[in-house]
């Protein structure tokens, strides 16, 4: 396999000097340090806490699934799980609505404008989410500028301590995850297809909906899935901008473990979060693959 891949990449290297099995083994073992590190300090603790959900119990044990029975029979937990899922879906939808026009203009702009639009995505992306959440507290707080402007317009609304503030902060943090794959997908679309549609009598709007939009679908799906999955695990933004009465799954896991040290229950909640994350990721990548196959036909 390696030989085939290399041969395609360039002219064949001298025999016996680079491609013997021993060389390939030499490359192979370079991965061991990273795998050992991740195995010991990342995967082992996670597998351990997931298995604790089947062996550690708070109170009298009835069956090995007690922690999961507790999770799904406690209405507050189920409410938080559903809220986490629909809030994440909403964040993905909002990111798509503002990310699509942004990625579209990015894909057709050139020179300095493109550099500016790219910088506006990349520079905030690297600034710590904690710092950004702090800034949103200052901007959205009760006596802050945004609330003052809204009051002047006659709108009475609180933006902090509820899901509105959380949405503003989470869309901001997730924005690059939406725009970058969308930008990649939109850049690949041959815009002459739109002209072809127009020359066949389509209005610009119908050319967009019937030609451009379907071709952009793989990028739309990829961005939406990334944002959805990333949102499921958010801790900082809901903890700082939201309210304990509208908590999400990650902050709930933290209170269940850091204060109560209930590892079994914490492990069960972690398992639920992990399975939800991987489930959305799996469904999303299947849908993206189907859309890709359809658009390449």
């Amino acid at each position: 396999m390696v030989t085939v891949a290399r041969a395609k990449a360039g002219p064949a290297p001298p025999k016996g000097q680079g491609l013997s099995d021993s060389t390939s083994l030499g490359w192979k073992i370079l991965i061991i340090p990273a795998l050992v590190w991740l195995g010991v300090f990342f995967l082992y603790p996670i597998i351990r806490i997931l298995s604790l959900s089947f062996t550690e119990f708070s109170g009298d044990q009835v069956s090995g699934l007690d922690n999961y029975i507790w999770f799904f029979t406690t209405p507050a937990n189920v409410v938080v799980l559903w809220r986490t899922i629909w809030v994440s879906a909403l964040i993905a939808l909002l990111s798509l609505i503002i990310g699509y026009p942004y990625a579209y203009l990015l894909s057709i702009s050139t020179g300095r404008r493109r550099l500016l639009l790219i910088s506006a995505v990349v520079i905030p992306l690297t600034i710590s989410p904690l710092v950004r959440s702090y800034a949103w507290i200052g901007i959205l707080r009760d006596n802050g500028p945004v609330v003052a402007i809204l009051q002047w317009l006659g709108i009475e609304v609180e933006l902090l301590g509820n899901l509105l503030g959380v949405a503003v902060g989470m869309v901001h943090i997730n924005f690059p995850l939406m725009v970058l794959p969308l930008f990649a997908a939109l850049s690949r679309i041959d815009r002459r297809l739109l002209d072809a549609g127009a020359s066949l009598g389509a209005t610009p709007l119908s050319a967009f909906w019937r030609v451009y939009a379907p071709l952009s679908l793989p990028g739309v799906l990829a961005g939406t899935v990334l944002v959805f999955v990333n949102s499921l695990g958010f801790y900082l933004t809901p903890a700082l901008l939201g309210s304990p009465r509208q908590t999400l799954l990650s902050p709930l896991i933290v209170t269940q473990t850091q204060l109560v040290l209930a590892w079994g229950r914490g492990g069960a909640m972690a398992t639920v979060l992990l399975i939800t994350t991987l489930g959305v990721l799996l469904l999303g990548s299947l849908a993206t693959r189907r859309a890709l196959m359809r658009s390449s036909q």
Partner: protein
Amino acid sequence: MTHGGRRWLWVAVTIIALWLFLPAFAVLPMSLNNTNRMSVWPEDRSLRLYDQLFGEPQWTAALTRSFRIGAIVTVLAVVLGTLAALAIARGYSRARRAGLNALILAPVIIPVVIAAIASYSLYLEWNIVGSERALIFAHTSIAIPFVVIPVLASLRGINPTLEFAAQSLGASRASAVWHVTLPLIRPGIAVGAFLAFMQSFDEVVLSLFLTGPLSRTLPVRMYSALIDDLDPTVAAAAAVIILFTTVAVVSIGVSRLSEARGAH
């Protein structure tokens, strides 16, 4: 799209771009506040918060600790990640590569809260919660993928036959990698090192669990300023982080742009 439609699109996108920069711009005036009341446009301005940030031991200790841990994590992640990227790019078939990628990238996909409670529970047993070692173990794990991704990308951009050319001229394989491959993937390693450092330097959730009262990093100190003691110094810390990050990103961007131009 019609001409007028295009113009409205530009208006909307300009507003979005301003919104993207808004938090960064808001923090700078917030940090000049001379009162203890939070405000995005303080009337009474001074550099008092910066004096506190660089003067009070609890803040300076947190700041130096974050830089120290970040530096150690960067070195570890760059070494482990670069070796792993070389192995993935050169040693494995395409089918194996997908599996290895999934393993290496697991820290990006798995929600950090899960890693946090998992490490906390294990490190309590190992009795290392509150030590800098605990943070280094956990931070390096989440930093490794951020080195592997850019290094793999730059490895994809170079021709492996260059190494064979060096070897056919008599260089050993190790020296071919050292003298030919490494210089070529240096831009990828630089980006990876920066991202790895920021992963550690900005990390909050793992650190909230793994630090003790005497081993707080800067983000943990800032978090407790927001949640517990409402210490306004957090504004100066936030502004310093924004300036530091922006200068680093812009200089990496500029150097890559000029490298790309120089190559033509």
